[in-house]
């Protein structure tokens, strides 16, 4: 019954994704999108993967994590190390899976002790955990220490990153609208009530945290292979905060918001390239203004929904008749 009712909306999303892909493809072929703009698009794509994953943890499961960059580093180094040794497309896709698995293990190790903490304490603990990951990478031989890795083969072109952004978003959105996602929302809303409803609060917190970490690893793999050079300093606390800014700006608890904010910040960032140091000032100003005039973020907690659009259209038609 739901299957039949939902195929229309699912089809709409599919059309949107395919249309977006062909639009970009055509614009690149025609030459409207040059390599500078393509670079911007890719950055936006990677930021979308990161922000959507962090939004799951912060906005939907209600756990304030500041360690996203650490899991991103895990994915990035897994890909960098593997494809530097065997530069084949197969190895690249294998390396994404390896990165995800290592990130899941790391998230379990970090999450099991720290997710018992709340609010600020959890933020500090996850931040520390991300720093530990970065410092380990900084001191390993296989990761080439603080100088980082160069000449990583480029397999992550913009179509790959576009598809990965679509796939990770779909996985997270589908998770949110299922049994597990509802349990995570219950945990966010009221832990005591969730507990008395028979929901294993700790398990679902951990599930959301691990899923968020896994998508961060995918983003890391994309970045390593697209930029072809990575260093531990790319994954410090500032990177975690940059992702947090996208989530907060777009709206905590709105996946659509994360998309919009990643897009806006990507464009603003690119447009201000020529301003040099002044760029950070303008960037900060934009943030402050939005926080003053729309503290819940650009989208608040609302989502773009074809279901609602259709329903509204139907209602209009009914009242028109």
């Amino acid at each position, binding site marked *: 019954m739901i299957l039949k009712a939902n195929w229309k909306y699912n089809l709409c999303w599919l059309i949107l994704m395919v249309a977006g892909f062909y639009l970009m493809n055509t614009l690149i072929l025609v030459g409207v999108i040059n390599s500078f703009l393509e670079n911007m698009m890719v950055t936006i794509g990677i930021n979308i993967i990161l922000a959507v994953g962090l939004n799951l943890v912060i906005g939907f499961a209600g756990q304030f994590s500041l360690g996203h960059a650490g899991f991103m580093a895990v994915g990035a180094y897994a890909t960098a190390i593997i494809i530097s040794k065997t530069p084949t497309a197969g190895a690249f896709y294998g390396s994404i899976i390896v990165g995800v698995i290592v990130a899941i293990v790391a998230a379990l190790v970090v999450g099991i002790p720290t997710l018992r903490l709340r609010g600020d304490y959890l933020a500090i603990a996850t931040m520390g955990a991300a720093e530990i990951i970065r410092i380990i990478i900084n001191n390993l031989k296989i990761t080439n220490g603080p100088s980082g890795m160069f000449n990583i083969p480029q397999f992550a072109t913009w179509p790959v990153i576009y598809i990965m952004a679509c796939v990770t978003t779909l996985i997270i959105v*589908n*998770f949110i609208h299922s*049994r*597990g996602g509802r349990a995570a929302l219950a945990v966010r809303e009221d832990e005591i*009530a969730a507990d*008395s409803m*028979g*929901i*294993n*609060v700790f398990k679902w917190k951990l599930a959301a945290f691990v899923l968020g970490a896994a998508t961060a690893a995918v983003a890391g793999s994309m970045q390593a292979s697209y930029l072809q050079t990575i260093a531990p300093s790319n994954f410090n606390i500032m990177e975690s905060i940059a992702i947090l800014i996208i989530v907060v700006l777009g709206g905590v608890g709105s996946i659509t918001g994360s998309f919009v904010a990643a897009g806006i910040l990507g464009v603003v960032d690119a447009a201000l390239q020529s301003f040099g140091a002044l760029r950070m000032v303008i960037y900060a100003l934009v943030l402050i203004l939005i926080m003053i005039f729309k503290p819940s973020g650009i989208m608040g907690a609302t989502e773009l929904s074809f279901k609602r659009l259709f329903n509204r259209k139907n209602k209009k038609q009914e009242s028109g008749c």
Partner: protein
Amino acid sequence: MTTLLNVEELVKNFGGLTAVSDVNMHLNDDELVALIGPNGAGKTTLFNLLTGVIGPSSGSITFRGTDGTISLNGMKAYKIANLGMARTFQNIRLFKELSVLDNVLIAMTAHYKEGFFQSVFRLPKFYKTESQIRKEAIELLKIFDLQNDLDKLAKNLPYGIQRRLEIVRGLAMKPKVLFLDEPAAGMNPEETADLTRLIRQVQRDFHITVLLIEHDMSLVMNLASRIYVLDHGSLLAEGTPTEIQQNKAVIKAYLGEEA
């Protein structure tokens, strides 16, 4: 009639304060029991002990489950809930930012399985289970006349309806025992009468045991087949409504001594 829940010499200390001391009580299958007492008598503490929100200092709580009698001492609250014990809260604890339907679906979490890959990749099985539990939830909401509010956020419902939704949410867990913590608090006489009818109907139709804390004596005397009276943490009296109404110690606890 057999005992479903048995409490023996239950004690709970908070530092130097004994909130519950030496309480013995039992709940049988399919009965409606009330727990009354003056403010601060330890009623909600006793509820929290029974539902595992806090652990007892000493004493035992046993529950007759599907495979034999089990001790609930030290068991986690969500596990106790999944044995078949649902509750409502004195100060409503709905999932406020979620829809009415989601509130009920969440309560059903333990009653169905959905694999991670099934839900993430939207396999046909996912749609099948999802439509099935949705149907169940909507049917339950229909009984309580909430079927037109499915997509409303819980926080936007009127106070009386929120209390009602909390009961629906408890019933969605398919419980054997339903604990109601002051269900009529803040309601006017008309709403209370409505609620009285509703609780009786729920108890009869779902064949569950109900234990309710309540200050509204009309509701208690109308509904309960047995009453426990708690005062200063210990059990003062136990009996039928008429017995309790005539009990000297109870009258003293509520009204003070005669001059």
